[in-house]
C-alpha cells in the first residue's frame, strides 16, 4: 500500500556548494537556515534573507522543494526579524517553513506560508499530530521513536484522514541519516551550562562529543569508562533497514548535516536516492546495502548505528573524537579557466602536488561537486607531464565546466 506513495528525500544545504551537491545527488527537497534564528546559528557561513530568491529559484529550476528552518526558541527581541524572514520567504516563493516556536507557526500561517513542525517539538503521539494538523502539513517525529510507534501514527493519519491546512493528509518526516545527540530531540542544556552557548539557539559547542572521566569523590579514584565517549552517540544510519523504515508509512526522509561539506551531502544523498528508488521498484538487496554502507563510510561519520528506531538498548557510543571516514580530502589548488571547445579544465596548484592517477574532487558554488580521476595532465604549457607542483598551472580533460572560484581536492584513503 505504502509503496504507491512517493518518498521525499530532504537534503541539508549549509551553503551554495551543498545546495548544488544536493541537486546533483538527486534530493527532492533541501532545508537551510538564514540569519541567526536557526539551529546552525554558530556556522560561519549562514545564508541571509538576501539569498532567499536565489535559493528559491535554484530549487524551482531543478524541481526541488525549498524549506526554511526557523526552529530555534524565539525571544521578544527576535520577533521583528522572525516576521521579516517569513515575509521575505513568502515573497521569494520558498515552499515551507520548518518551525518549532508557536510564534513562528502563528506568523507563518497568517502569511499563508506552509508550515512543517520541527523535530524540536518532539512529536511522539497521534493526539499531538491532531493538534498540529490545524497549522502544519508535514510533521517531523521525535528521533526517539521506534518503527512500531511510527507505523501506528502513520496508520492513524490514514485511517482518521487527518489533514493539514493544504487539504492533503499529514506527511510524516523522520531523520534518516546523520548526527544524533544524547538529548531528547536535541533539547539539550549542556552547552548552555558550560559555555553560555545554547543548543536551542543554534549555538551548541558539542561538548558532549568529548571524553569524560568520572571521579569518585570519596576515594578520589578516576574512572574512564571503557575509553568510550559516553555522551557521544554514533551517527544514525538507516540504510540497512530502510525498507522497514519506509514500510511504516513515513514519507519524508531527512538527512542531517548543514554543518558538513558538499562532498558529504553528495555522497549521502546519492546513496539514499538509490536506496529509496530500489525500495520503490522492488530491488532493495543486502548486496546493495553493503555497497551503500561502504560509500557512506568514505565521508564524515562517527561510526553508524540504527538510532532508537529498532528499539535497541543504549550503549552505541562512539570510540573516537572525530570522523571515522575512510577517505579524506586534501586541498590542492583553485580553478583558473575552462576551455569550452576542447573541454579542458585548468587549475592553479597552491598546496600539494597533483599527479596522473589521482582521484580528485572539485567543488564550487555553481559547480557543486565533480569527482574524477586524472588520466592525463598538462603543466605550464610545457606539454604533458605526470605531476604538477605548487605554483604550477595545470590542465586536464573534464567533460563539465569549472569556474574560477572552484576548489580542487585530492581524495586519499586513511
Amino acid at each position: 500500500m505504502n509503496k504507491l506513495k512517493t518518498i521525499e528525500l530532504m537534503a541539508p544545504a549549509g551553503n551554495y556548494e551543498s545546495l548544488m551537491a544536493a541537486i546533483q545527488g538527486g534530493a527532492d527537497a533541501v532545508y537551510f537556515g538564514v540569519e541567526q534564528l536557526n539551529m546552525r546559528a554558530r556556522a560561519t557561513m549562514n545564508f541571509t534573507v538576501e539569498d532567499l530568491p536565489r535559493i528559491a529559484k535554484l530549487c524551482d529550476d531543478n524541481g526541488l522543494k525549498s524549506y526554511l528552518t526557523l526552529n530555534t526558541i524565539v525571544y521578544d527581541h527576535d520577533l521583528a526579524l522572525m516576521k521579516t524572514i517569513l515575509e521575505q520567504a513568502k515573497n521569494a516563493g520558498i515552499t515551507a517553513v520548518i518551525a518549532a516556536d508557536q510564534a513562528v507557526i502563528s506568523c507563518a500561517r497568517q502569511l499563508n506560508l506552509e508550515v512543517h513542525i520541527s523535530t524540536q517539538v518532539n512529536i511522539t503521539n497521534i493526539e499531538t499530530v491532531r493538534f498540529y494538523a490545524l497549522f502544519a502539513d508535514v510533521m517531523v517525529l521525535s528521533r526517539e521513536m521506534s518503527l512500531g510507534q511510527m507505523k501506528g501514527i502513520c496508520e492513524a493519519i490514514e485511517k482518521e484522514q487527518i489533514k493539514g491546512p493544504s487539504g492533503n493528509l499529514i506527511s510524516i518526516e523522520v531523520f534518516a541519516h546523520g548526527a544524533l545527540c544524547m538529548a531528547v530531540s536535541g533539547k539539550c542544556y549542556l552547552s548552555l551550562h558550560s559555555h553560555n552557548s545554547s543548543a536551542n539557539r543554534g549555538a551548541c559547542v558539542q561538548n558532549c562529543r568529548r571524553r569524560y572521566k568520572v571521579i569518585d569523590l570519596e576515594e578520589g579514584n578516576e574512572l574512564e569508562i571503557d575509553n568510550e565517549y559516553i555522551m557521544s552517540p554514533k551517527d544514525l544510519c538507516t540504510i540497512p533497514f530502510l525498507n522497514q523504515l519506509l514500510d511504516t508509512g513515513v514519507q519524508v526522509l531527512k538527512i542531517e548535516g548543514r554543518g558538513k561539506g558538499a562532498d558529504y551531502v553528495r555522497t549521502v544523498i546519492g546513496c539514499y536516492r538509490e536506496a529509496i528508488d530500489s525500495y520503490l521498484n522492488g530491488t532493495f538487496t543486502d548486496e546493495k546495502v553493503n555497497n551503500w554502507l561502504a560509500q557512506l563510510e568514505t565521508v564524515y561519520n562517527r561510526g553508524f548505528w540504527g538510532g532508537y528506531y529498532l528499539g535497541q538498548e543504549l550503549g552505541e557510543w562512539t570510540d573516537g573524537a572525530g570522523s571515522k571516514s575512510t577517505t579524506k580530502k586534501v586541498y590542492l589548488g583553485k580553478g583558473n579557466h575552462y576551455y569550452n571547445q576542447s573541454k579542458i579544465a585548468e587549475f592553479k596548484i597552491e598546496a600539494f602536488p597533483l599527479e596522473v592517477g589521482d582521484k580528485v574532487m572539485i567543488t564550487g558554488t555553481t559547480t557543486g561537486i565533480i569527482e574524477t580521476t586524472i588520466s592525463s595532465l598538462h603543466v605550464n604549457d610545457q606539454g604533458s607531464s605526470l605531476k604538477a607542483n605548487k605554483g604550477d598551472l595545470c590542465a586536464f580533460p573534464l567533460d563539465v565546466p569549472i569556474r574560477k572560484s572552484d576548489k580542487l581536492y585530492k581524495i586519499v584513503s586513511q
Partner: protein
Amino acid sequence: MATVIHQREKCIGCNYCVELAPEHWKMSKKDGKSVLLGAIEKKGFWSSKISEQDVDVNEKAAKACPVNIIQIR
C-alpha cells in the same frame, strides 16, 4: 579609559550582554542582534569608549558571549 569592540554581524541574539551590562547594551528590535550603545562602526567592528569603572561589567559580558564577539581593550 578602555574600548569595547563588538563584531556585531556575528551576534546570535542570546541577550547575555544586555543581562550583564544593561547600561551599555540593548537588543535591537529590528534585527534581533545586540547593540553596543554609543558605538561607532568601522568595517563591521563597532567600538565604544568606556570608563575604568565600566570595564568590569563589560568584561563579564565579553566572557559570557557564546560567540566571542566582544573584546575589551
